[in-house]
């Protein structure tokens, strides 16, 4: 009862506070914290669902009217949650270490970018492109299919590989896709090389909502579908086969798990989530180029999965949220704040920050602090924030 009241009050007060102080990052973090509290607090299931549902469906868009940037953050969180959930299938469940995951994101993004922009005219001639903007919606499925196909293409040659070897090959694969995107502007201009593709059509939205709100809800909808699919896969013979492969590939095969099919399915379903979100990403950004799909992005998504807890759906969601918020808000805010101190010439321990050499500029701390957080997490909580829990079930015992 106390927990229930506390959760409701926490969510309500923190969202009100965001409306009052729309510029304060700390207050927005408080709001995010309240959602986390509502998720873990010992409250009835219906109340938890209502609170979280109200927060993402109503409160978040309303907050967006006070500070549009927060809605952008939430949309990016949604995109990365879907990516983390996709990678979680491959790495967390099936135990196949994939260091080139962002390649599938790129495949999805480029599939819409090419046909949803005038660039396709360069490729095919004529003036028929961009496709009418409603084509965006069928392209969600097309992006999914193309990415899943790419997943199978990657999967086939690496089926025999495991562990370190697999990691190296997937790393190479990710780089190949990026380098292709970078260089396929000649002899045939497919990707327009490093200059990237723009302008990419945005989808028509119902009810005349703004693009910010529209993309937020689109990302949210896809995340919900991805979570549902993820849970159903995990809680079936397919998910159990993946975990068996992770635990002991040889024993799994001896128990009747067809390795080839199971691994390809893992690669394909993981890739398909990234493909869908790639289509959304390209439309949201209007402009994409190979810079968005670097090795560091793959590592970032992997960090989300590991930080959250391998093989755990809530873990992947929280991991993606934490990392994205850290990168977009906390670390940025921190370096801005340090910069302000420096510009104001504040003195700490008798040292004037204005004299700080440029090598020690606060902006350079961002990555370092992120790395430090990862290292500390791995030392003190290697199993992740929400480690995977085994399902407990009633068995047919007399």
């Amino acid at each position, binding site marked *: 009862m106390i927990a229930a009241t506390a959760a409701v009050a926490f969510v309500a007060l923190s969202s009100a506070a965001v409306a009052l102080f729309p510029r304060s990052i700390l207050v927005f973090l408080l709001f995010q914290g309240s959602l986390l509290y509502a998720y873990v607090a010992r409250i009835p299931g219906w109340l938890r669902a209502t609170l979280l549902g109200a927060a993402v469906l109503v409160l978040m868009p309303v907050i967006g009217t006070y500070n549009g940037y927060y809605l952008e953050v939430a949309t990016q969180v949604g995109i990365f949650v879907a990516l983390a959930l996709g990678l979680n299938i491959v790495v967390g469940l099936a135990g196949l270490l994939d260091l080139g995951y962002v390649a599938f994101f790129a495949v999805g993004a480029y599939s819409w970018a090419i046909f949803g922009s005038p660039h396709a005219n360069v490729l095919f001639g004529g003036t028929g492109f961009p496709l009418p903007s409603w084509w965006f919606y069928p392209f969600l499925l097309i992006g999914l299919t193309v990415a899943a196909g790419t997943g199978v293409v990657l999967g086939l040659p690496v089926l025999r590989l495991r562990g370190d070897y697999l990691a190296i090959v997937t790393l190479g694969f990710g780089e190949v896709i990026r380098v292709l995107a970078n260089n396929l502007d000649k002899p045939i201009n497919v990707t327009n090389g490093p200059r990237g593709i723009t302008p990419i059509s945005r989808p028509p939205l119902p009810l005349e909502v703004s693009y910010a709100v529209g993309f937020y809800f689109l990302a949210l909808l896809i995340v919900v579908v991805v979570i549902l699919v993820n849970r*159903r896969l995990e809680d*079936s*013979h397919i998910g159990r086969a993946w975990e068996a492969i992770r635990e002991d590939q040889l024993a799994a*095969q*001896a*128990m*009747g798990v*067809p390795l080839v099919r199971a691994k390809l399915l893992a690669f394909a379903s993981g890739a398909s989530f990234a493909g869908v979100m790639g289509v959304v990403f390209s439309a949201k950004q209007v402009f994409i180029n190979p810079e968005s799909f670097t090795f560091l992005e793959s590592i970032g998504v992997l960090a989300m999965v590991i930080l959250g807890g391998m093989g755990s759906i809530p873990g992947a969601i929280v991991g993606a949220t934490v990392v994205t918020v850290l990168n977009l808000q906390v670390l940025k805010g921190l370096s801005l704040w340090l910069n302000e101190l420096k510009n104001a010439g504040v003195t700490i321990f008798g040292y004037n920050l204005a004299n700080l050499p440029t090598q020690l500029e606060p902006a350079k701390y961002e990555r370092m602090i992120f790395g430090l957080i990862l290292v500390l997490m791995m030392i003190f909580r290697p199993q992740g924030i929400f480690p995977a829990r*085994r399902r407990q079930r009633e*068995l047919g015992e007399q």
Partner: protein
Amino acid sequence: MSAMFEAVDVTKTFGGLTALQRVTFALDGGIASIIGPNGAGKTTLFNVFTGLYRPDTGAVTFRGRPLVGLRPDEITALGVCRTFQNIRLFANMTAAENILVGMHSRIRLGLRDVLTRGPRFVDAEGALWQRAGVLLERVGLRGKGNEIARNLAYGEQRRLELARALASEPALLLLDEPTAGMTQAEAGTLMALLRRLVGELGLAIILIEHNMRVVMEVSDRVTVLDHGEKIAEGPPREVQADPRVIEAYLGRRAATGRAVP
């Protein structure tokens, strides 16, 4: 009429080492044991039978179907399943989940059933978990279904591995040293269970075993391997008295009846 399970002239070499030399083996039912000193090729033979190794020459058939060239999971689907010498459970999954993985080749659900989660899926999944409970009870692990496999005691892990193999509904079960690390009493209980399985389910079992008391009590037939070759085969009493077997285990002088120093 050929036997249910038949291996003819199986040879397997690793580089210069001949692990199996023209081994012939047939089984129609009951319990057959394979014994032999360490390194005799017993586990290699199992690996050939279950598709983990491809023999250099020779044929293996089960119910008239050739097994050589099939993948391990295909062989399991045909009804030949095994356990491992060094217990290979899915350590971080629960006991029940281990058994459910064993049922994989018997599950007739597709991706669409999983994603739509219709009544067909729910019924089938429910039945699987029910059966997992029955299997756990059968091997004496009642109430342990939700335990993580890694946390089970050693003997329990051995029995869970047996239950996992049984989950694939095999007609032929290959057990690689199932009583290793068990007390004589535990081994006795396990053998009684195997006898019951043969009686009730009509299962055929091939056993690799070092515990001679177990072998002599439970086997209908014993095959002896030494240096990759079959040196003796027959009812337990006969094999026990075979001079070549005694030689393989104890040395030449023991076999010729002279006192062992």
